[in-house]
């Protein structure tokens, strides 16, 4: 049995407290009026930014060539200012949402990996099942938090999802056409169905997995195999829809048909990386004595392979849009190329170039500190990936990695560590009666 070390527990509490404090500062310091927002931007950027826009607006007004030119300019200015206010108000919310989704996505990615191992009846991995079950335990609190944030968005506590605002939809033909699917009620019903299904499978599979240890036949194992296969079908459909709902709908005019796969690759590689990190940590504390280099090698191979897969999907999505150059599609990348250069290209280096070069050599996949180092970079890279998916739509060019963003990472990171390692103490770390456990113990490559 694993006992939660005190240092780790205290560390997770400190992270949560500091994170909460940072997030609180972020929420309190968000502007509540247009004047405050303008003052914030003016003081942050000097005169350059605001002044430039004002000139642009005046020029725009004069071009009309009517007597109402000045009025037009003012109107434009006012709508721009409200937009700016909304962006600044969105910032702490987006920071909260990105971090909440990122850690939730790790648990969901691990759940998919776990279900694949079960459905494939893999012989190498059963020894890692308890670690995976521990990580997927975070699905319950993480999923509920994401759901609460979505409910608060529907209640207009923030302006992250513009299509939730009836005023905006009233002036937007495209959104009216999508309203049959993209409306707040159906949105929440879908979210509840997705989360309900995933959490149900997680809890049920865990129950069967524990029951298998105590039983004298393989019936629980067979049941788990069937549930896992069924779950994968459900997951494949719902994961895709979840990514449209929770992320792609932040840019409600834009769409990409492989977006679901893209988000899947991100969560899959983050999940596998976290499995590897937790396994290395537990092994360094003297647990999991039957886990050997070959298990680690296989996890690192997955990290390497899925990193390449992620890049493939990232590029497939980008290249088609870049080549076709259709205005309504290409705006998505224009926003990222103009305002998000560093996180956007930094993410490519962290998620592709770095793991490609570091994890290519077969021998390095067996070196613990190498895998840990690559893992941390990959995880930060995929946090940035979610950041790049959410922020351009919600805060535009007002992004910054500051207190609320770091606070979100710390708070949910602390909660994640606390929840996962508490779940790990609940059952022995090595399954007893899994029919493949002997093969897994002697796994050798």
């Amino acid at each position, binding site marked *: 049995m694993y006992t939660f070390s005190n240092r780790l527990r205290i560390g997770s509490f400190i992270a949560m407290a500091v994170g909460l404090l940072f997030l609180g500062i972020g929420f309190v310091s968000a502007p509540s009026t247009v004047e405050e927002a303008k003052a914030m931007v003016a003081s942050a950027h000097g005169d350059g930014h605001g002044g430039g826009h004002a000139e642009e607006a005046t020029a725009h007004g004069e071009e009309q060539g009517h007597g109402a030119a000045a009025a037009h300019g003012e109107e434009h200015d006012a709508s721009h200012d409200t937009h700016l206010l909304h962006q600044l108000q969105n910032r702490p919310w987006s920071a909260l949402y990105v971090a909440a989704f990122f850690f939730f996505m790790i648990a969901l990615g691990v759940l998919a990996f776990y279900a694949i191992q079960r459905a494939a009846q893999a012989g190498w991995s059963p020894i890692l099942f308890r670690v995976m079950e521990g990580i997927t335990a975070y699905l319950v609190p993480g999923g509920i938090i994401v759901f609460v944030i979505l409910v608060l968005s529907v209640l207009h506590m923030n302006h992250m999802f513009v299509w939730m605002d009836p005023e905006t939809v009233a002036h937007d033909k495209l959104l009216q056409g999508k309203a049959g699917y993209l409306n707040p009620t159906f949105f929440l019903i879908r979210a509840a169905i997705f989360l309900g299904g995933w959490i149900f499978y997680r809890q049920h599979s865990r129950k069967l997995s524990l029951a298998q240890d105590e039983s004298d036949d393989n019936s629980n194992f067979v049941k788990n195999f069937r549930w896992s296969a069924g779950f994968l079908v459900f997951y494949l459909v719902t994961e895709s829809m979840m990514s449209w709902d929770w992320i792609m709908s932040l840019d409600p005019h834009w769409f990409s048909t492989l977006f679901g796969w893209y988000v899947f690759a991100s969560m899959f590689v983050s999940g596998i990386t976290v499995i590897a990190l937790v396994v290395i940590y537990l092994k360094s504390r003297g647990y999991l004595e039957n886990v050997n280099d070959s298990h680690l090698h296989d996890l690192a191979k997955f990290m390497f392979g899925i990193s390449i897969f992620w890049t493939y999907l990232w*590029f497939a999505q980008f290249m088609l849009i870049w080549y076709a150059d259709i205005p309504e599609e290409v705006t998505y990348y224009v926003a990222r190329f103009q305002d998000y250069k560093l996180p956007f290209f930094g993410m490519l280096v962290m998620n592709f170039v770095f793991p490609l070069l570091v994890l290519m050599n077969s021998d390095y996949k067996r070196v613990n500190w190498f895998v840990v180092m690559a893992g941390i970079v990959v995880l930060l890279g995929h946090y940035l990936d979610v950041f790049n998916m959410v922020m351009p739509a919600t805060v535009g060019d007002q992004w910054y990695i500051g207190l609320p963003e770091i606070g979100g990472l710390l708070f949910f990171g602390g909660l994640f560590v606390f929840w996962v390692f508490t779940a790990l103490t609940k059952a022995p770390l090595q399954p007893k009666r899994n029919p493949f456990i002997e093969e897994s113990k002697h796994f050798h490559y």
Partner: protein
Amino acid sequence: MASKVIQALYNDDDVLMHAVKKVRAAHHHIEEVYTPFPVHGLDKAMGLAGTRIAITSFMYGCLGLTVAIVMMNYIMIEDWPQDIGGKPSFSYLENMPAFVPIMFEMTVFFAAHLMVITFYLRSKMWPFKKAENPDKRTTDDHFLMEIGVHDNESELAELLWETGAVEVKVTEKDS
């Protein structure tokens, strides 16, 4: 130059593996083992050095990537610039995304093909090469271990019979 070798035949890969370990433990130099299929772990048991083909593969991949970049730059930018989909080909960098699939394919193509050719050459296999394996049965269901003889014929034969060989013979070998 002809050299004297002793050849032991086995009919099971597990027996062969144990025999290899025993012969090595007795400090005899195994010249070669012929098997009908790859035996997992045999290279380690024989004490062969690790393969370096991965390094060549990386170099060939880099070569392929370079060839793709130079080739596309010549074809699409320098020699015959075209305007495709409103993207005039005047700059390699601005058209680079269109060349990424080619860069990827050429990297894989070079790495894969040159790696296979390297493997054949390194294994001294080329067209019209005379087969090296001393016994046809090693292409069917037998395993053959070959050890150089240095005036210790009877001692070696005894050891090999002990390890479970089904046949032991001494022959002259041209090399």
